[in-house]
């Protein structure tokens, strides 16, 4: 089982400076657990996501699939003569518009749950008490090369930066 050092904070504004200090000492922060999204922490951890690009791709796929389907059904498979109007109609745009949104929403949702590895029945990883309440928790993996001295230093940084509790397991 992996061993960790965790620093528990009461104030979210202390966490981002702590992450920066740890990075200065070449300590990698594995993750930070918070009751709400804190943009300073996301920035300090230099996290980025490519999610919007995926969403755009889903939109393009949705557009293509919907257009192909409408074209195949209403123009090729079974063209209906409705008052002599053309089968390939500009009013396709309404369904296209809605279906692009439909398909992008569903695909983005599925992509989100796959990426964060969560879903009905997933068990939450236990890190510390109060994460979904009022605690901000910095988690650092204890690597094999890390000596006791190193972990003591990390604990000290965490404490000095304002952690109310530092735990090792």
């Amino acid at each position, binding site marked *: 089982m992996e061993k960790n050092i965790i620093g528990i904070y009461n104030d979210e504004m202390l966490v981002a400076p702590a992450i920066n200090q740890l990075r200065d000492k070449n300590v990698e922060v594995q993750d930070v657990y918070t*009751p709400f999204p804190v943009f300073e922490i996301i920035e300090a951890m230099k996290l980025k996501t490519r999610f919007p690009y995926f969403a755009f791709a889903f939109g393009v796929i949705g557009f293509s699939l919907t257009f192909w389907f409408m074209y195949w059904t209403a123009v090729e498979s079974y063209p209906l003569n409705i008052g002599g109007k053309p089968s390939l109609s500009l009013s396709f745009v309404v369904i296209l518009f809605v279906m692009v949104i439909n398909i992008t929403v*569903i695909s983005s949702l599925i992509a989100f749950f796959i990426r964060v590895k969560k879903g009905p029945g997933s068990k*939450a990883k236990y890190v510390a008490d109060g994460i979904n309440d*009022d605690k901000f928790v910095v988690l650092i993996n204890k690597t094999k090369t890390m000596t006791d001295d190193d972990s003591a230093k990390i604990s000290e940084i965490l404490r000095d930066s304002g952690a109310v509790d530092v735990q090792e397991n």
Partner: protein
Amino acid sequence: MYDVKVRGSLIEGNKSYHQISEDISKPVESRAPNWWFIAMSISTVMLIAGIWAGFVTISQGIGTWGLNNSVAWGWGIINFVWWIGIGHAGTAFSIFLLILRQKWRTSINRAAEAMTVFAVISAGIFPMIHMGRIWLAFYIMPYPNSRGPLWVNFNSPLFWDVVAISTYLMASATFWYVGMIPDFATIRDRAKKTGNVVREFVYDLLSFGWDGSTRTWLRFETLAAILGGLTAPLVISVHSIVSMDFATSIMPGWHTTIFPPYFVIGAIFSGFGMVLTLMIIIRKLYKFQDYVTKGHLDAIGRILTFISLIMATAYITEIFIAWYSGSEYEFFTFFKNRITGDYYWAFYAMFICNAVIPQLFWIKKIRSNITIVFIISIFINIGMWFERYVIVITSLSKDYLPSAWADYSPTFVEVMLYVGTIGLFLVGVLGFFKFIPMFASSEIKGILKPTTDSND
């Protein structure tokens, strides 16, 4: 980083993060108050009445309604459009205000989204049941079939409706549920602490293993922005499409290009009216005055004043164009069958409730008197119902041919069907009060301190 205090504090009472969790989890964790059981019983009775009316309609046919050849759309379509309109508020609130980065939305969005979901479900019942042969409802889905294959008509506004409303329901429900996951995790953790096994099991299942990791939060926020950005145009398109059910026909009073914007703004108006009604109830009965402050109600009041002016403009424009167009049929519909004539009472009920009464919100004293605000919000709900009544009934009852003119009044079955959907809506909303955190605690915690404003 700067801090401009335009509105003052969004959450009152100097809450700590823990206090917010306590407050928001309390209705879920404690026994429901007595009024809740009474309200739930009444709503259930209403729902049962609706199920009875639905059963009668399906087993005996649409002949149990008061429709006739001329007025082929009655309360069914009126109530459908009314509910869809109400269903627009949640998304309008959550998404437009999310995109505009309006932080006061955090206290209201959850309830508004809940309302959306139940209102859209209530709305969906009407067109389904109006088909008469509901067991053939699946014919409206485009799937390869043995009837040709006979595909749906992609140029029909009625089919657009099916696609738009089902997409809207799906997107709104998704947006609502995803937002609730972190709060379910809070309740799960609290249940674990107190040893409530059943609650822990249920909310564990609902919370999808949420652990509050920053990586997940980043993707969560991005997902919220994507869903918000996608659903915002959907709000506009859904009601535009509903309006095209009317506008693409040739009925006098319907065949107008103003319909899509007029319907969209009307929908947002009625939705905001219902949000106001609901928030005042939540605030009062659950003592959430610190979360839904007078400032929130004041803001909704101001928005309603503005939308009410647009509504008035739309009404007046319609009347003006009916005269200016020189079309005698349009003139007849607006001047002889709405402003005067058999249905004048419905027209004035609509105009006074939607365009005149909300103008009282200009007065600050009225905006800050919760009782009057509540009464005005009810008037808006009623007024918007009359708007749909005016549109549907006046145009259909007296069209081009006087020989085809007919009167319409709903039957008991139709009325009960409407009562039933109100029951369904209330059962849903009351269930929401009891089992789901009424505010998005993670969003409220996020706006508690001005320090997290640096992204603006």
